[in-house]
């Protein structure tokens, strides 16, 4: 029996969802529940910390400023990590039946992310690191006596691990979607848009591909700046360009936080139709919308720099236009289409479907607050007030987190074959909506008053806002508590039914529907029927491409010319730029040789080794780009030359590794890798 042919369990889904809803298989359920469960645990813990901070601001409890900022830092990183982790699992759950992914890589993602979260926990609570999740350089190196150097290193290492974990996920998604749908333009639906493909990929595949590309770009930028800062903990002579570093930090942080919601959109495209009984199909408008989002997700960060007046004005103007532009695909495609899907559908209201629907509202309302803040004249009056906290909590908490709860409930309810009582659902949704919007609404009001964000001690006479906010937060927490109780009850039912799944069966005589049991063993072996995953070509294949690579190698050789090496000694920035040239030469050479069919055959299919290389080699190269390491070598010309060759060697390994990742992913990883040392040179001087 083909998995795709299996009917869906009607007990918790819309009866019409039969036919386009395959039963959840063991691997999808396990990974979905592992990631979402861990994410929810992390989010719940961070939520408690958030409540403690709000009560401190309300002067109900007396957390010291030192502890307040440690907790603030942990809360920020922990929440984003938890949300990303859970959403990655949720996307895996919906994507895997369409595009088989590698469970092994997903586990690598899990452990890297978990290790990163643990490192941040140690850095903040044990080490006392409290430079906030934005850690705007050079603040981490001005601790005001609050944290030791080791905590800086551990914090940066934690961020690096989380970013790398997400990167591994994105590589797998990109590799599989582009292989399955005939390249990047196929997976993004552009060939369908241009009329070259009769059929488009499903909406969640397009969403996943966009998230993967933007996630890889964000991870590359994040790896660069965090690696640079990690080196700075070892060598305090390294200078930091505050403006460039701020651009990079926000690019990384904003994009990672933002991508969680776009991951959620992919999940919603698949799961909400199951309750509406109407499949959601790709349209040309959807493809065009996501093409816009591909750009807007990565340009969105720049509105964090509106009040950095030295940022070029043209960049500010483009930033404002694209920040507004980001609204269009979200409002016109995702949110609007989902409400269309629901309209007149006899929507099946369950705990999961209610929360999915409520989460749409969180994105819409939070998005309006964000768009208002993204207009520069308004931002002048709202920048870094708690208005900002209000709008991102509205869509992160009342959309992303609510969707995560919805996803978890979806899996459990399907296993249990039942939903919670109507009264319980009403209490859960009611408490989350009233508590949540009251909680964030207080911040909107306080932001309009001009209360700055990240204040352990509130301005005189304003702690009442925090008290009201904390009271609503308690209602919200109560809603989560009722949710957990209901999930516990559903999970017990699911456990009792763990050996079989309920599926819809249509009686041949009467035409009536009833639940039939199918042993899990009949479904789960299908996981093993993973289609072969042929490598999708090599990054270079045509004579023109090889010719270009040879020319690029020749250009890269210039970085070794003694006059250029000497000229680059004028500053750390130029010196690093020269090292970037060595790396570029090596990477180009590696890509060229690894793409030669004869050598490629000898190297064999080693995607995991290739991935490890493209992740580690650029990071290792940048970690060595610390004056305290390379300056002692410069006295001896031989050692100096060896160091430059080592830079090229890291590049060579990167280029070779990229060829093991196929045409699209290999090229993407290669381009990002050669960009990283350049960004490094720009930010650290």
């Amino acid at each position, binding site marked *: 029996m083909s998995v795709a042919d299996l009917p869906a369990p009607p007990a918790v889904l819309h009866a019409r969802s039969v036919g386009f809803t395959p039963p959840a298989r063991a691997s999808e359920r396990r990974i979905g529940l592992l990631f979402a469960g861990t994410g929810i645990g992390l989010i719940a813990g961070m939520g408690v910390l958030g409540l403690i901070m709000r009560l401190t601001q309300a002067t109900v409890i007396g957390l010291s*400023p*030192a502890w307040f*900022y440690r907790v603030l830092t942990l809360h920020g990183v922990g929440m984003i990590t938890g949300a990303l982790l859970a959403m990655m699992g949720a996307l895996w759950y919906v994507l895997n039946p369409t595009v088989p992914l590698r469970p092994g890589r997903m586990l690598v993602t899990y452990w890297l992310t978990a290790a990163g979260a643990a490192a941040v926990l140690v850095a903040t609570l044990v080490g006392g690191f409290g430079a906030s999740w934005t850690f*705007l350089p*050079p*603040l981490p190196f*001005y601790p*005001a006596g*609050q944290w030791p150097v080791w905590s800086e290193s551990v914090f940066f290492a934690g961020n690096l691990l989380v970013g790398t974990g997400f990167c591994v996920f994105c590589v797998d998604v990109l590799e599989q979607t582009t292989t399955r749908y005939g390249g990047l333009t196929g997976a993004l639906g552009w060939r369908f848009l241009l009329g070259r493909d009769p059929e488009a990929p499903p909406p969640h595949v397009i969403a996943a591909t966009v998230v993967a590309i933007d996630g890889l770009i964000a991870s590359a930028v994040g790896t660069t700046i965090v690696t640079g800062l990690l080196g700075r903990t070892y060598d305090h002579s390294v200078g930091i360009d*505050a*403006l460039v570093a*701020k651009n990079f930090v926000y690019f990384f942080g904003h994009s990672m936080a933002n991508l969680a919601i776009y991951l959620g959109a992919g999940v919603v495209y698949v799961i909400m139709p199951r309750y509406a009984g*109407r499949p959601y199909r790709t349209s040309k408008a959807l493809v065009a919308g996501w093409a816009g989002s591909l750009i807007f997700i990565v340009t969105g960060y720049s509105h964090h720099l509106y*009040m*950095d*007046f*030295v940022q070029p004005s043209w960049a*500010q*103007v483009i930033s*404002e236009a694209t920040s*507004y532009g980001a*609204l*269009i695909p979200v*409002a*016109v495609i995702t949110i609007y289409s989902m*409400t*269309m899907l*629901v*309209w*007149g*559908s*006899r*929507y099946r*209201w369950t705990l999961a479907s209610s929360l999915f*629907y409520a989460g749409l*509202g969180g994105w*819409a309302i939070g998005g*309006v*607050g964000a768009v208002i803040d993204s*207009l*520069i*004249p*308004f931002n002048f*009056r709202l*920048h*870094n*007030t708690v208005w900002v906290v209000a709008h991102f909590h509205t869509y992160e908490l009342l959309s992303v987190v609510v969707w995560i709860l919805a996803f978890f409930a979806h899996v459990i309810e399907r296993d249990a074959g039942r939903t919670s009582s109507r009264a319980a659902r009403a209490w859960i949704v009611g408490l989350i909506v009233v508590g949540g919007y009251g909680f964030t609404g207080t911040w*909107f009001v306080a932001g*309009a*008053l*001009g*209360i*700055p*964000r*990240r*204040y352990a*001690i*509130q301005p*005189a*006479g304003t702690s009442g806002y925090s008290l009201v906010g904390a009271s609503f937060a308690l209602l919200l927490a109560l809603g989560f508590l009722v949710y957990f109780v209901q999930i516990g009850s559903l999970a017990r039912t699911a456990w009792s039914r763990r050996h079989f799944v309920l599926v819809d069966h249509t009686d041949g005589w009467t035409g009536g529907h009833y639940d039939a049991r199918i042993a899990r063993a009949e479904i789960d072996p299908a996981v093993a029927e993973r289609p072969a995953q042929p490598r999708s070509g090599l990054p270079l294949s045509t004579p023109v491409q090889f010719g270009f690579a040879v020319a690029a190698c020749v250009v890269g050789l210039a970085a070794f010319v003694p006059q250029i090496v000497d000229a680059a000694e004028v500053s750390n920035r130029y010196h690093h730029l020269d090292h970037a040239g060595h790396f570029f030469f090596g990477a180009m050479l590696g890509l060229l040789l690894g793409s030669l069919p004869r050598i490629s055959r000898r190297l064999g299919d080693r995607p995991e080794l290739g991935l490890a290389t493209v992740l580690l080699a650029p990071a290792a190269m940048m970690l060595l780009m610390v004056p305290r390491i390379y300056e002692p070598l410069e006295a001896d010309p031989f050692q100096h030359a060896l160091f430059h060759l080592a830079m090229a060697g890291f590049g060579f390994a990167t280029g070779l590794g990229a060829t093991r990742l196929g045409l699209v992913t290999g090229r993407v990883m290669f381009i990002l890798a050669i960009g990283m040392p350049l960004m490094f040179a720009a930010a650290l001087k």
Partner: protein
Amino acid sequence: MNLHYGDPQIAIGATFAVLAALLAAAFVVIALQAGTEASEERVHQVGYWVRERWLALLLVIGMVVVGISFFDLPYATGGTAGRTVVKVTGGQFFWALQPDRVPAGTHVRFDVSSVDVNHGFGLYDPHGHLIGSVQAMPGYHNELDLTLQGAGVYRIRCFEFCGLHHSTMDGTFTVTAGR
């Protein structure tokens, strides 16, 4: 000095409240309609018709609002002729202004920088209304032009997280009556 709502902020807050209420109402109506039965064809027919207009509306609003906003950018332009330059320096955890007072009606150019980490120069008028903010960055000078009409003591607060005493890092700037 207690904080008070400024007129622009009240307008912004009210606009948001109205839009949020409209959206919430729309979600409630759609949720109520979700329980009814309508053919998919009919939903598509009407839904896509509305969607085209929804897209057009958002594009028009965007072009008008974003376009107008470009005429009210806070970024300083031109030279310092006719302006009094006030050097603003932020540091953990202080503000230093030179000069620290000007007569009412002076066209001021705040030249804002930092000696250590990123700070935010947030300025409140004597009535506790937030006028606006600009970042103070090490190695860079952000220039903000303002004409301060009202005499009194203006309060400065830090608007970028800068460490342990961020929330108590404040300063003052005085505008005297008459020249």
